[in-house]
């Protein structure tokens, strides 16, 4: 009864505060005028704040706000409790303002339009329930994850077996959380792999964009901006910045969104590039972390995941420390860590090789050949020389091979193209 009353009050507040007289449910980015903020967000330091906290700030200013997500067309979909009719243009503009301020860091997120969906639960209730249930529910064997799923306007609980669901629902009921507010997904338990979700971010972890998987090369600071380096071909288009959104380990709404592509020099012709082809001196791009409209993401600059040799299982603790950057000469041993073949080692066989890329008109100039194991998904992997464990010299990032030869772009050329990078924990 209380819950029903609460929901009713929230709906009423939403109706009153946002004046739902509306004319359209979808607006373009530049709606022109916008409304002022009506209430202040709670004081909280950015360091403590996670993405759900930021969504909660929106809910505090927009009663009835139930969460938001981008659909496949890039349209921003916003849940409003009990909202069956379109919002007025002024209400839409107000909502856009708040979202831009609290989620977009000042940037409007509705460049491809915004639509209102009828929600069942306001975000603040879901947020509170998520915090209440997590300690209890995650302790139940067979529960893999708990989430306030802003894309579904529900709590989202990952379980390994449907038999666990009944036990979880008992706990929810005891906490006064309506069972219909939770959706369940059967999933595999999280394994300690380079392919698992890992924070802080560091070299060697699986990353994802679109339908593709690659490997995070190394964390770096470029022009004062923290991010990571991976291959240029691990972005929407190889060469040129398309603001590719990246996830670790893979996309799950905005939960795993970690960064956005901000540097990826275009390929050039002429100037030493073979006729009819386009060239670069490295297959590299820079991804800013975090994404402006994603959750806060921690990074561990100067570190690379350290699985056992020939393994991609990683305990989440052992790391390599990048203490310097350098080159790799013919005959020197090099190691790489990637999401597919894990940690493999080999020897440099050739340096400064100009090599064509299969199935394209791309030529990569002055690359290094070695014979460490690599395969699909290892693109972007950090390549380094081990000096005294766990210290390593960073020498480049892997991008390809042909079954017997593995190829990486040297760090010096990556920095020629992307600009100076600080890759060590301190400086190097």
């Amino acid at each position: 009864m209380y819950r029903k009353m609460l929901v009713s009050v929230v709906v009423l507040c939403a109706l009153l505060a946002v004046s739902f007289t509306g004319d359209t449910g979808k607006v373009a980015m530049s709606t022109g005028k916008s409304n002022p903020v009506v209430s202040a967000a709670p004081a909280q330091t950015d360091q403590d704040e996670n993405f759900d906290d930021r969504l909660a700030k929106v809910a505090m200013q927009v009663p009835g706000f139930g969460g938001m997500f981008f659909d496949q067309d890039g349209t921003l979909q916003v849940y409003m409790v009990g909202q069956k009719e379109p919002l007025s243009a002024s209400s839409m503009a107000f909502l856009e303002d708040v979202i831009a301020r609290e989620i977009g860091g000042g940037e409007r997120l509705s460049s491809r339009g915004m639509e209102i969906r009828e929600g069942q639960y306001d975000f603040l209730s879901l947020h509170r329930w998520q915090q209440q249930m997590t300690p209890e529910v995650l302790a139940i064997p067979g529960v893999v994850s708990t989430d306030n799923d802003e894309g579904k306007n529900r709590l989202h609980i990952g379980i390994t077996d449907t038999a666990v669901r009944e036990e979880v629902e008992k706990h929810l009921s005891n906490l006064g959380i309506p069972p219909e507010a939770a959706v369940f997904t059967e999933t595999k338990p999280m394994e300690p792999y380079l392919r698992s979700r890992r924070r802080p971010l560091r070299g060697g972890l699986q990353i994802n964009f679109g339908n593709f998987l690659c490997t995070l090369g190394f964390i770096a600071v470029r022009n004062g901006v923290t991010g990571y380096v991976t291959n240029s071909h691990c972005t929407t288009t190889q060469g040129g910045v398309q603001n590719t959104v990246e996830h670790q380990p893979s996309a799950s709404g905005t939960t795993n969104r970690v960064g956005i592509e901000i540097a990826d020099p275009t390929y050039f012709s002429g100037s030493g590039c073979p006729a009819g082809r386009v060239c670069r001196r490295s297959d590299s791009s820079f991804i800013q972390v975090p994404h402006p409209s994603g959750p806060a993401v921690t990074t561990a600059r100067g570190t690379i995941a350290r699985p056992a040799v020939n393994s991609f299982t990683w305990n989440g603790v052992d790391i390599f420390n990048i203490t310097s950057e350098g080159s790799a000469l013919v005959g020197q041993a090099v190691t790489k860590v990637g999401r597919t073949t894990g940690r493999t080692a080999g020897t440099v066989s050739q340096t400064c090789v100009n090599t064509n890329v299969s199935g394209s008109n791309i030529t990569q100039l002055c690359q290094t050949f070695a014979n460490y194991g690599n395969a699909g998904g290892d693109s972007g992997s950090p390549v380094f020389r081990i000096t005294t464990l766990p210290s390593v010299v960073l020498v480049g990032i892997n991008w390809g091979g042909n079954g017997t030869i593995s190829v990486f772009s040297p760090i010096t050329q990556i920095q020629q193209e992307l600009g100076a990078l600080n890759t060590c924990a301190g400086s190097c």
Partner: protein
Amino acid sequence: MIAMVWMCLTLLLAMTLDGCSNQSDKSGRPEEPLTLEAPDEVEAGQTVNLKLIWRNLTDKPAELNLGGRPPYDFVVTTDEGKEVWRWLAGQTVQDILEIKTVDPGQKLEFMLEWQPVNQAGAALAPGNYLAQGILNLDPPAVLKTKPKPLIIRNKK
């Protein structure tokens, strides 16, 4: 009249069976998801169209992790199994992994036009060969088609 009805029923039954047989070949064996389409016979010097096809023969969407860019390859051997040509030999493939979802009954196709030459670029002598298609998945998983006979005959 009865004969006509019987004929119609027989025809309908035959059509139904034919419609149901898309997951098995004429001998009733289950169809392979990965197949290679290539001509049985070509004239020396004639271009060979190779088509590698992966079909989702199940009734559920299938998720395929395609390893490398490009993720497929073609190999030609003599009929004794000696490799004479491999499309990706010596080529540098990008180490990316692509996740493709294929709906039930849908397919992925990879095509290549091949001038029948050996790895050194010399025209293959007329004779009997075997062509095979390869699809690289999340390593180390690899799918290969059955070798398909290919006859290169003298120019007329």
